[in-house]
């Protein structure tokens, strides 16, 4: 019984180790990148378009709509980051249907890397949206006593993002492994279906939480314009 795919070492040359987390991450990256490249090679704007283009359009527009509903007014700007997070986590959990595959998100290193990306992206988008001074001042809202608590919450929510995704993915794989030793035939399949559902929900939650954090950091507090009084 092993806790994470980090411990399966496929290939080793001296100090350099290639464990299955890295291998599956690369495979996923390759599939996602090459797949999107192949589909977007011949796009059409007419009514006559391929199925794959329809699929990608549905995915992209629904991600855009979700980002907009969170409160980010310019979804195109955030689509690259948040969409990639969602697609990577979702495909990592969807591919568990393939035998022999272990989700790379079931390793704490992958989820920590993803959470660190969010940790960096939040101040990046915040500063680009409202400027350095205004962003730094938002740590002092509502009073300057809240400064340490705001910093702590920034750190702890990054930890929470990483551990939440890791715990869900790891527990799914582990429950299936334990059930295979107890009731080998039917019941693991049901748990696998449940695992697929949890994977999608976790992917949704991961990207929505990142969007919420970014929206909270990049909200410009403008005074509301007074409604014009018609004479």
């Amino acid at each position: 019984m092993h806790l994470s795919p980090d411990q399966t070492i496929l290939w080793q040359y001296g100090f350099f180790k290639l464990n299955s987390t890295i291998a599956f991450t690369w495979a996923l990256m390759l599939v996602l990148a090459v797949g999107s490249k192949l589909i977007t090679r011949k796009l059409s704007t007419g009514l006559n378009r391929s199925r794959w283009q329809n699929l990608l359009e549905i995915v992209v527009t629904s991600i855009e709509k979700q980002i907009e509903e969170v409160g980010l007014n310019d979804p195109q700007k955030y689509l690259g980051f948040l969409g990639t997070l969602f697609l990577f986590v979702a495909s990592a959990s969807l591919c568990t249907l393939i035998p022999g595959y272990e989700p790379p998100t079931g390793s704490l290193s992958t989820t920590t890397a993803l959470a660190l990306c969010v940790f960096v992206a939040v101040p990046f988008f915040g500063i680009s949206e409202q400027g350095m001074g205004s962003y730094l001042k938002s740590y002092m809202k509502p009073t300057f006593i809240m400064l340490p608590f705001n910093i702590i919450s920034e750190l702890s929510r990054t930890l929470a993002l990483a551990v939440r995704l890791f715990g869900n993915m790891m527990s799914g794989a582990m429950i299936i492994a334990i059930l295979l030793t107890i009731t080998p035939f039917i019941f693991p399949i049901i748990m696998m279906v449940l695992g697929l559902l949890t994977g999608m929900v976790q992917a949704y939650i991961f990207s929505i939480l990142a969007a919420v954090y970014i929206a909270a950091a990049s909200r410009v507090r403008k005074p509301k314009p007074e409604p014009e009084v018609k004479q």
Partner: protein
Amino acid sequence: MDSMTIIAVASIVIAGITTGFGTMGPALAEGRAVATALSSLAQQPDASSTITRTLFVGLAMIESTAIYCFVVSMILIFANPFWNHIIAQTAGK
């Protein structure tokens, strides 16, 4: 009991207690959250998308406390540092 037995017993018992008690609070909290969300959905079906999204995000927040407990008990069972330490000590003797 020698120290090896104490460590083994303590790890196993505490792992069970951690998950057992740690999921109790989040279970109650999630039940309350879902019940409130359902009643507000019944009152305002128009706001369903907002309510559902907020519910999911909130549930994930609540659930993460249970998952912390689960991770701790998994560490206690499968990757216990104290157990590894005592195994290394007895092997070194």
